[in-house]
């Protein structure tokens, strides 16, 4: 299973997914979110959803010097925070810029594909689903 962006054109920019991802850990605000919503160069042009695509062979894990990123079943990685030194190489390796930074912990924030955000998306933009190899718009 992994988190999929079903249709970014349906996104209204409410950012409720970002709050959900942070609330999962018991906080308000958006400081722990692994999914980001931003405009495509202005609200008039619509929104883009930036989140991990759950690569089968993730470049982020390859560059981690501490083996802090463990391959996740179903794609993507899981962060072992005790091994992570906060070097940030993983963030640079992600071509869709889906690795975010936790300024409070000085560690990367990477989606673990739990689907908590999708439960709150009011407009059917996100879903937790079986992997489809043809998904093309996950990082749209």
């Amino acid at each position, binding site marked *: 299973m992994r988190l999929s962006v079903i249709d970014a054109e349906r996104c*209204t920019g409410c950012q409720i997914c970002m709050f959900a991802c942070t*609330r999962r850990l018991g906080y308000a605000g958006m*400081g722990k979110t692994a999914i980001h919503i931003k405009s495509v160069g*202005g609200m008039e042009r*619509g929104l883009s959803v930036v989140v991990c695509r759950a690569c089968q062979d993730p470049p982020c894990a390859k560059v981690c010097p501490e083996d802090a990123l463990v391959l996740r079943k179903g794609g993507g990685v899981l962060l072992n925070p005790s091994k992570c030194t906060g070097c940030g190489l993983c963030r640079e390796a992600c071509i869709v810029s889906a690795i975010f930074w936790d300024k409070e912990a000085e560690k990367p924030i990477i989606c673990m594909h739990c689907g908590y955000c999708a439960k709150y998306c009011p407009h059917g933009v996100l879903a937790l689903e079986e992997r489809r190899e043809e998904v093309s718009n996950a990082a749209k």
Partner: protein
Amino acid sequence: MLPNDPLANVLYVDLSKKRSWVERREDLFGKYFGGAGVAIQLLTENCPAGIDPLAPEAPVVLATGPLDGLFPLGSKTVAMFKSPHTGNLGESHAGGRSAVAIRMSGVGAIVITGANTNPGYLSIEGGKAYFHDATTLWGMSSSVTAGRIIRQNESSSGLRSIMRIGRAGENLVTYADVSTETYRHFGRLGMGAVFGSKKLKAVVVSGNRTLEVADKVAYRALYDEINTAAVSSPIMKKYHDLGTAENIQPLSALGGLPTRNVQAGRFESAEAISGEHYAEHYLGRRLACSHCPVACIHIAALREPYQDEAYYYKTTMISYDYEPIYALGSMLGLSNPEQVLSLMDEVEVLGLDAMSSGVCLAWATEAMEKGLVTEQDTGGLKLEFGKADGYVAGVEAITSKSNEFWSILSRGVDAAAARYGGADFAMAFGGNEMPGYHTGPAGYLGFMLGARHSHLDNAGYAIDQKELTKGLIPAEQLAQKLMDEERWRQVLSSLTVCFFARGIYTPELTLRALAAAGYNLTAEQLAETADDIYRAKFTFKLANGFDFDKLTIPQRVFETPAVVSGFDEAYMRRAIAFAAGQLASPRA
């Protein structure tokens, strides 16, 4: 409030000295929550009575509240300033990403004083202000383009708000607005001119953080309760489906849609400019403020051919709502939905308040019909109800203050009527041009008695439609109802929750939401705080020259049949006198 909540940080910015600093104000946020409650205190502290609203030392206050960043629909920023339009309390609310961005930046409020020597913009992050030059953006024809350039210069896409002015603000039109995220506005009362007087083109606020809550488990449960209500409650449905434009046809059918400067309450072309028509033919996208599952922002896609070249088109995305459709549609007798969209876009690009612009142009049209204003006055421009071209030229003339007439009209309809006559059909209340409700005495009293002279202060228009259609009630009783509603709304605008969610945030739910943010109050304490905030606003208003006895009522109100009729000036004066007795003295 919770200890160490960054909400209590107030960022002070002095544009003249290019200096910023943070002060911890738990005294204010602990007692008044945030939003309107804190803003009126910060305004009172920083804005001496009698000051020129456009003087460098006049402050602009932006305040958010404890529920912003915590719960759905906590999405509003309250701005306070001294209004250059009325010379009194200026209060304006906007959504977009402004409230969440301010809260995430690590402050609860921002107080901006002083003035730039050269045009500049501010970026605010991590409790600090950074001063940037904006000389090249000053005078740029479109505020949307200026917003785009600032967007490209700044990082933190998706985690920021860009509040900016257009040419109307630069030129000190007293009803210029400040827009944010292209489509949301700090409208009414001229905050854009205050930015303009400070040579402040824009304020960018960005940041991201976590916020603590009192009890993590209880917080998640309450969040789900509020979120479920927000997405499934029938009271939010109208905002969700057609948006506020849903009201055009029903209000016209009742006789409450101001038409051709309120010469009528029914518009024969209401269907053509209705929410239904726009949704069916033009709706191109819906957007939401940050943390709002409702997404009431409706954007029309207007596709227009260029006249000089075949197969050449442009498509403009234009935000529409009930109020701009009223002010720039029925009020001007415009029945072509595309022309109304174009005029709304023009007003957006210039950075004018849509309501005041429409009312000013409607007055000017009638004044021309009656011969009070001539084409010589207007510089050859002929204004006629139903003709869009004159109005497109008119909003440009207002913005550029192209001659004496347009310069006076750029100060509002009262200023224009004082010079040219026609006060009986100059549709302003408390100095502020009317919103789109010709519903009856509660609506009009609401405009006059509300601290912002806004229909949203007390929703008098709803009292007309729901209650007074069954018969008038004593004037004093009506004034009391309006005041009771406005008093409660001080709580919502201090949390800071969108008024559209007022049906969800009942006093009972509000107390529980406040508890999550570390405020433990009883219902009685909450009511007392509401009253304190309400009275603090009137203390400011009275100290700055507001006088209930000097409120004027254009006779047009009584002449054109409304949803509720049969009221006269004496009835209105009794209600005003009652309110004055209640509000002009401190609480007993």
